[in-house]
């Protein structure tokens, strides 16, 4: 029996649930020499606006306990160059490409999605309404239920591609945002984007990154992200794509049990760009050990019965 790792996000079928997270995998092609891009469930591009963007001045990242803060500021080549220069190569490599779409206005989100609808080789749109690193747009939509509903509705009308809003964890009740997205016609939701954070150099009394504020990612945030996925899974019917601090197969399984249909791996790419094949192997191993024929059977299969107080 060969283990079946495939999962479905609406009409989109992925050979396995592992997706490279936006901003942590360049445009995918940067990694083609270390991993066969077609082996991944999918890859998410860096966040793209209509136009090219410079991003913030460096230093742009700083390490923190079991995590890192980044404020790249969405440096990017713009959707047109992406479609022209990157997409054809990604198609050739057999990558299932999700495009992370940014906007400073609702219209820009719609425009970018229209460009992508006309292009060939886009698997889905991940709507970035949650980047904590830019002032205009983005997270303003992601922190308001109306904003979320409106931007998802508008994009929904403009494209027939699967639309997956990416939610911010910097809200009181993330599940209500998943619900708003579902009501507006989203095909899935992905979460979490990074947590707004900062770090001060006490010797200079100045910030450690130029933008002062940035987004926290990595293992540090995993327990919060798992909780948020579980909350969303219980409230909405559309698939949830979970992420936040995944480093190995155990973490992938934790997110799937909590209700993730697929997962994204971000920061761990930097620690170990060869993470993908290692995780795939360990997932198969787990499936054999636990006699799981289809990995998708584990989605939401968390059993909330309390454990025993004593050890085995």
């Amino acid at each position, binding site marked *: 029996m060969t283990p079946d790792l495939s999962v479905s996000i609406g009409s989109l079928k992925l050979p396995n649930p592992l997706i490279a997270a936006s901003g942590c995998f*360049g445009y995918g092609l*940067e990694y083609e020499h270390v991993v066969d891009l077609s082996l991944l469930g999918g890859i998410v591009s860096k966040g793209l606006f209509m136009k090219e963007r*410079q*991003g913030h001045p*460096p230093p742009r*990242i700083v*390490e923190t306990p079991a995590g890192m803060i*980044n404020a790249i500021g969405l440096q990017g080549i713009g959707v047109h160059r992406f479609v022209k220069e990157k997409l054809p190569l990604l198609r050739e490599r057999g990558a299932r490409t999700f495009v992370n779409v940014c906007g400073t206005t609702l219209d820009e989100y719609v425009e970018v999605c229209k460009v992508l609808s006309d292009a060939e080789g886009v698997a889905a749109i991940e709507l970035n309404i949650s980047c904590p690193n830019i002032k205009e747009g983005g997270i303003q939509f992601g922190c308001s239920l109306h904003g979320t509903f409106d931007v998802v509705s508008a994009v929904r009308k403009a494209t027939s591609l699967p639309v997956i809003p990416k939610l911010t964890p910097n809200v009181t009740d993330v599940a209500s945002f998943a619900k708003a997205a579902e009501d507006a016609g989203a095909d899935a939701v992905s979460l979490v984007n990074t947590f707004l954070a900062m770090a001060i150099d006490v010797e200079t009394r100045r910030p450690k990154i130029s933008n002062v504020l940035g987004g926290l990612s990595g293992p540090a945030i995993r327990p919060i992200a798992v909780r948020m996925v579980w909350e969303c899974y219980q409230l909405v019917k559309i698939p949830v794509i979970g992420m936040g601090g995944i480093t190995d197969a155990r973490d992938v399984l934790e997110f799937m049990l909590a209700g993730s249909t697929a997962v994204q791996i971000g920061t761990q*790419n*930097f620690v170990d760009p060869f993470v993908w094949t290692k995780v795939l192997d360990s997932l198969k191993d787990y499936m054999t050990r636990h006699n799981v024929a289809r990995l998708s059977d584990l989605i939401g299969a968390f059993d909330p019965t309390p454990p025993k107080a004593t050890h085995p």
Partner: protein
Amino acid sequence: MPPIDIAARVIANARLSSDYSVLSLAAPDVGARTLPGQFVMVKPEGVTDPLLRRPFSVFEVLRDPQGVIIGISILNKKAGRSTRRLYDLEVGDVVSCLGPLGQPFKTVASPTRAWMVAGGVGLAPFATLAESLAASKTETTLFYGARTGEELFYLDFFERLGVTLVLTTENGARGTKGRVTLPLEAELKALAAGDRAMVYACGPEPMLEAVAKLAAHYHQPSQVSVERVMGCGLGGCYSCVVPVKHGGENANLVRSCISGPVFDGAELVWE
């Protein structure tokens, strides 16, 4: 050659001073692929704090007595947590070593001379470059500045390759006293019309800037190796950008891990 990741055993860790060590790693396949100026991203195995790897120039490509490549070394200088930990490693410890990464130096051949300018730990990429230049019989000089005489390392190594040494120390204990750019400027000034020297530089940013500007002033080309905080070393995170005059895909902030770390000194915008 695509980079690989090796769980490399520590073969040796020679402490050169209380701050510097040469850490030798059993990573033959990394060694075999490395070109002068490239770097590796390393991290002691099993360590989760700090989380991220750290970039280091490949210092030497190590060979056994038969000339078979057995690994690489890095010249490690204590700066913070990871470098301190690397300094303390013992033979038999294991280090994850991802590489080779980045753009190498472009080598030159006679009659162009090669002038390497190193500040402190900036010596690191020049051992392999000097070997490569020696192999092509290029006339090579190393301008090498350090804080003290005790921090001028591996002089024998370069002498054996026939490299001319021009040394400076901050305290004047060895070589001339002062900055390494002083003798460099004197030599640039002394170049006969029509003579050409490729100026390679690695060291603190102010030194790089001074060297690149001096080279340009005397109409000589330069290649400088820059250092930025690097999250991934592979072009994935966009943490390591530097401003260049004719940037490729991203207007003028380019990723120093894949477009560098070696840049044409005339292309960089100094901040």
